[in-house]
């Protein structure tokens, strides 16, 4: 056992070195920056919690951005997990064409998010887009989509769902393959129905996969940036101004590194908190 541990450590060491160098260290640096004020000459002064204080008490856009980010997260995460799981259950059988449909659902995730955003932007154009042409064809009222402060965030969630459901489906498929066949056979002998098997065997035994997908997907969605940057620039009226985009603007347009790093540090804390809660909620209660 001990020798295994040693070998394992040797194998993961290179990865850890690089993660430490390119992920952990920048996070530490950026956390440090969030307590400073940088003047235009590049001189940094330590200002303690001033950036945080301003964000929490005075900043006119910060809380709106937090609300938007949390709302987006609450919308997209359950949807993605449900859709991915649904697709996996649907395509986890040996029937004709399932391979084709699996590939089809996975394809959107192989396209870069920027391309996806541009294409959907064209489809959702309120005046000349494909989506509204179709709505008009079937006699429905055209929708403003990305130009409405009530619909834009939902559109972004829909685009993200379209792109990532197939990707997470692959993880669920792998999880489904890992469930021992004997359990289903025993259930068949006991006369369990298909639904019973899904709810009594499949879902409980998939808990670990679900847990991983939920946490990874949460972190991923909290860092959503490209579609906001390309499609809405945080608008209409701040309705899609996710924290990641707000932080980006602070850093690269407003040259306000203190505020930008304070926002990204807060974002990191939010992600950690939510991940811990999710891990607790989806803890596997048994082993197989």
């Amino acid at each position, binding site marked *: 056992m001990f020798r295994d541990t040693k070998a394992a450590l040797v194998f993961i060491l290179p990865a850890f070195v690089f993660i430490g160098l390119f992920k952990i260290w920048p996070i530490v640096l950026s956390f440090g920056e969030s307590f400073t*004020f*940088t*003047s*235009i*000459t*590049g001189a940094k002064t330590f200002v303690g919690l001033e950036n945080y204080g*301003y964000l929490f008490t*005075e*900043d*006119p*856009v910060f809380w709106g951005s937090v609300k938007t980010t949390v709302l987006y997260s609450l919308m997209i995460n359950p949807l993605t997990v449900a859709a991915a799981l649904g697709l996996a259950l649907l395509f986890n059988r040996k029937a004709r064409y399932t391979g084709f449909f699996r590939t089809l659902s996975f394809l959107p995730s192989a396209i870069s998010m920027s391309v996806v955003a541009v294409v959907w932007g064209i489809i959702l154009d*309120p*005046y000349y887009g494909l989506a509204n042409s179709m709505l*008009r064809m079937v006699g429905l*009222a*055209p929708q*403003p989509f*990305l*130009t409405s*402060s009530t619909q834009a965030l939902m559109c972004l969630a829909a685009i993200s769902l379209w792109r990532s459901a197939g990707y997470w489906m692959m993880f669920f498929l792998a999880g489904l393959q890992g469930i021992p066949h004997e359990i289903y056979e025993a259930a068949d002998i006991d006369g369990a129905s298909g639904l019973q098997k899904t709810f009594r065997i499949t879902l409980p035994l998939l808990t670990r996969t679900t847990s991983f997908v939920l946490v990874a997907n949460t972190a991923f969605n909290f860092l959503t940036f490209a579609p906001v940057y390309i499609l809405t*620039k*945080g*608008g*209409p*009226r*701040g309705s899609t101004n996710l924290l990641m985009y707000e932080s980006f*603007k602070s850093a*690269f*347009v*407003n*040259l*306000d590194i203190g505020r930008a790093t304070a926002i990204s540090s807060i974002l990191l804390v939010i992600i950690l908190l939510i991940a811990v809660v999710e891990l607790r909620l989806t803890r596997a209660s048994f082993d197989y």
Partner: protein
Amino acid sequence: MRRTVAVLILVGLVGLASVSTFAATKLEVIWMGWPKDKVDVLIDGFKKANPGIEVDMQLIPFAQLFQTLEVRLPSGGTPDVYIVDGPLTPSYAARNFLLPLDGYFTAEELKAWFPASLETGRYKGKLYSIPYATSSAGLFFNKAVFRKYGVPFPPEEPGKRLTWEEVAALARKLTIDENGDGQVDVWGFMFEQIDRPYQLLPLVQSKGAQAIGPDGLTTDGYINSDKFVEVATFYSKFFNEWKVSPQGIPDAAKSREYFGNGKAAMMLGAEWNISRLADFKGLEFGLSSHPYFAGGKAVTPTGSWHVGVNSKTTKKDAAIKFLKYITGHEAAVEWTKLFGHAPARPGVYDALPEVFGNPMWQTLFYEMNNTAVPRPVTPGYLEYELILRETFNSIHYGADPRTSLESAAKRIDRELRKYR
């Protein structure tokens, strides 16, 4: 074995080829993302005249250009030369990203540019960027649409202008649902740039409001003044009360498409539209002088792209050569023909009577000489522009003008602390 030898020979040849190009000085240039085939015409001219200098032109789309520069400039000596949005000159100069240029140009050479354009390239008395173009704007209108609905044309002679109230009244007349499906088919009026200070500040200045405090670092009390709010409210009505302008048209190219395809009767637009609208088959358009507010003064936007040299470049001589070429007379003449920007060199106007004889150019020429007001001079123009843009964008979507501008003033002033 034989294959290995062949591969080795190939590698060797490739190596040789690349060594030979290393002998030349290679300039890295970050440039605005104009059509490559047009930019290449200018670059080829430079390469012919300077065989020892290679130019790596990196064309960056407008939407990413400024962020790209923000990432690249603090990190060292490349790009050697880069395009500078005129009002950003103080921002780059304050941070030592631009080489002071006074020593490289004689007073005689500097006479080739409009004094007002050169002024935009100066910060604290030193010259940091050379004008590549300048700009002006006016009210473009679609003659076919006006004729079709029996509305008389706006005045076309230089300096004769409509008031904004008249424009709004015309726009209400010319917002048309042609087939009664509840969808507007022709919009009465469009801003080419829906939320950019470049296009919107002239409205504010026409009312007599200030865009920024005299120190260039204060907006509280200026962008939230009663007059400023009044203009922002008027602007909001186009989209929310009269509904004569479409919401959510994020960029100039898209606005131009609307107007070019007959989906808008009028468009407040910049001078490049004179040449760019020629791409739309069968479009018959006119240009009326920039509108103003009754009782206020006529104000038009101006200023455009400049070019600067990276203060940390290791190839100063080649960079200055390139700067002088690209902002020089021949290149400016060529670029005007290719793209239709307003030249910043009076000499180009004389050299191209076939272009500038057009009465529309006479109208803009009148504006440049009589009503042009440059954008605010502030080292914090990046921050000022971004936050004001977001604010106008929200207002056009129906946000309350006063509250939005109050919050903008607070945000901008906090960001401008770093320059104090």
